[in-house]
Each structure stands twice: as structure tokens, then as C-alpha cells.
């Protein structure tokens, strides 16, 4: 693998081909905040909290650090007025959905985000896709997925698969930056308990108990 020299926040960094800016920064002790990024998963670039400023031939532009690959002689700024402003607005938007997320609260503190800037839409999920991708890529079970589109998009457990797989796994729970995942599971669990356990037809009617 060939060595690539670049500069991050004024430090000279030697990286290898294929590394992302988040990886390269980490190797010299600079932390770029991330939410949808996970070492074991394919790059996703969904949340944009890892936005950094890079200079390509003298032109500054904003890119997602978790998917942007290192380039020779690249100049990267992980904090700048522009970067901080982007992150601040992103956190404000996400807080409108998940006001109680600990990770978001920490970021809000750091970037001076106002948690009440946008009207609340407590869907609790910020669509980072960690749960969905973890289940698909690592566990290969596809028990949880996204449904619907646009602002109605949400995660959903599929009872046919979840009923068999999730009880003994639940490895996605700690990945969620909000509380949405666990809530969705609890809901799904109530729907997927097999009829014989729930008694008769699975509903609460008094008709045909076992």
C-alpha cells in the first residue's frame, strides 16, 4: 500500500491508500465527531456530522470525513467557522427528532447548538442506519429495516425474522445514538409473541384461551 502525505489541522500525516479522513485524523489523535459511522460497517455518509473542510488545489470545500478518502497533499481542517456552523445546524435538526439523545447533547454543548431552535418532531430516530446496517452486514439477518419515505421514514422490525432472531441478539441496541431502536423493538416484541404464548388467537379477547 502506498503512503499518502497530507495535512490535518496543520499536522503532517502519513496515511495509506483507502483510508478515510476520519481514520487518518484518528491516527494522529485528532477526533472528528461521527454518528452514523461504525468501524465494522461499510461507509455510509448519512448524518454529515463528520463534515470537514478540505482544500483541493486551493479551493476549500466541505466533505464528509467518514467517506472521503485521503489524497496526496490534501489540506484538511476539522474545525473552522464553517465546519462548526454546519455541525451546529445538523445537531439542532437532529435534536428536534431526538431531544434526549446523550450523544447529541454532548455535541450540542460542543457546538453551541440550541435544542429548541426547530419545532419538535419526536420520531426519536435520526436515520443513522446503524441498526439496519449492523443487522444486514454483520449479522446478515435483515430483521430490522427502513420503511416509508421522506419525513415518514422509520425503522421497523419484521416479526417473521425478528421473532426468531432478535431475542438472543439485541446487539444493535447499544449502537443507537437515540432511544428509538429499543422502543421500536419493544413495540415489535409485543406484536411478535407467538399466539400459543399469548393464548388462543393472540389477541386479548376472552374467546379461545388455551
Amino acid at each position, binding site marked *: 500500500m502506498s503512503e499518502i502525505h497530507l495535512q490535518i489541522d496543520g499536522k503532517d500525516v502519513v496515511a495509506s491508500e483507502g483510508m478515510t479522513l476520519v481514520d487518518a485524523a484518528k491516527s494522529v489523535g485528532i477526533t472528528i465527531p461521527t454518528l452514523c459511522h461504525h468501524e465494522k460497517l461499510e461507509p455510509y455518509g448519512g448524518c454529515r456530522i463528520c463534515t470537514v473542510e478540505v482544500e483541493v488545489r486551493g479551493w476549500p470545500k466541505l466533505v464528509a470525513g467518514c467517506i472521503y478518502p485521503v489524497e496526496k497533499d490534501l489540506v484538511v481542517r476539522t474545525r473552522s467557522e464553517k465546519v462548526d456552523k454546519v455541525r451546529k445546524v445538523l445537531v439542532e435538526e437532529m435534536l428536534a427528532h431526538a431531544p434526549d439523545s446523550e450523544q447529541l447533547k454532548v455535541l450540542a454543548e460542543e457546538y453551541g447548538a440550541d435544542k429548541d431552535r426547530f419545532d419538535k418532531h419526536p420520531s426519536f430516530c435520526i436515520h443513522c442506519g446503524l441498526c439496519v446496517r449492523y443487522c444486514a452486514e454483520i449479522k446478515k439477518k*435483515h430483521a430490522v*429495516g427502513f420503511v*416509508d419515505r421522506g419525513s415518514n421514514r422509520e425503522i421497523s422490525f419484521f416479526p417473521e425474522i425478528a421473532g426468531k432472531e432478535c431475542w438472543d441478539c439485541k446487539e444493535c441496541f447499544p449502537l443507537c445514538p437515540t432511544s428509538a431502536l429499543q422502543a421500536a423493538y419493544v413495540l415489535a416484541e409485543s406484536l411478535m409473541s407467538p399466539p400459543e404464548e399469548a393464548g388462543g388467537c393472540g389477541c386479548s379477547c376472552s374467546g379461545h384461551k388455551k
Partner: protein
Amino acid sequence: MDIKRIDEIIEKHDSEESSLIQILLDIQSEHHWLPKEALNRVAEKLQVPLSRIQHIATFYKAFSLVPKGRHEVHVCMGTACHVRGAQRVLDAVQDATGIKPGETDADLKFSLETVNCLGCCALGPVMEVDGKHHGNIAPSQIASVLNNCD
């Protein structure tokens, strides 16, 4: 639902994973919705996770996971139709069918949807029934158009 027919549709597309959307479209156009057993069958035959099929089936508005009527009525509510009285057209359709946009009647005869532009603004107000456009339609004509559907 005839599972053999679903298999035929799948085979027509060589059980190709890359034809997933086309297969779903075919099932949708034949049944006017995507029954759960059909989706399970597609998942099994194409070896794609059900979650991905659900993701697609809920993403595109062309698909429906609940039964639709035999006749699909679309009333255009785009700007041009709107200023030419689309609301009165819609009211007339609702009166004639007894359903609101997004609904299907109990006999599974009609489903009603509003759309934001059918792309033929000069014909406004426009109502579309089973893909056929009815341009410059007057509220008084609606009942007779819909009565022609069996």
C-alpha cells in the same frame, strides 16, 4: 391470490434479483396491491431479504400494501388544475364514490388518490381513471364517467 401466477411473473423475469422492482410492479398491476404472501414468495425465490422488499414497497408510491380497488381514480390537484376548479372535481368524485383520497371502497371498486401534476396542465382540470385521462372535466360529468366502470 394465485401463488402459481406469482411464480410465473417471477420466472418471466428469470428470478433475477436485479428485476425486483419490475416484478413488484407486475404483481401490483395485476392485483392492484402487493399481498404479503406474494412478497414472501418473491423474497424466497429471489433470495432477497424481506426487509429490503418492504423498504422498496413502502418507498415508491406506485406500490400498495393494502388492497386497492379495480379502478384507480386520480384527481390532479396541481396548480393549473387547482385554479380551474380541481377541488370541485374532487368533491364530485368523493360524492360519487363515497371515499376520500387514499381510500378504497368496501366493494373494492374504486380507489381514489390526488396527484400533484399529471403533466398535461393545458387540459385542466384533469381526472385520470385507470390510466385514461379525462381533460377539461366538469363536475357534472363525473358521475357518468365513473358509472361506465364496472
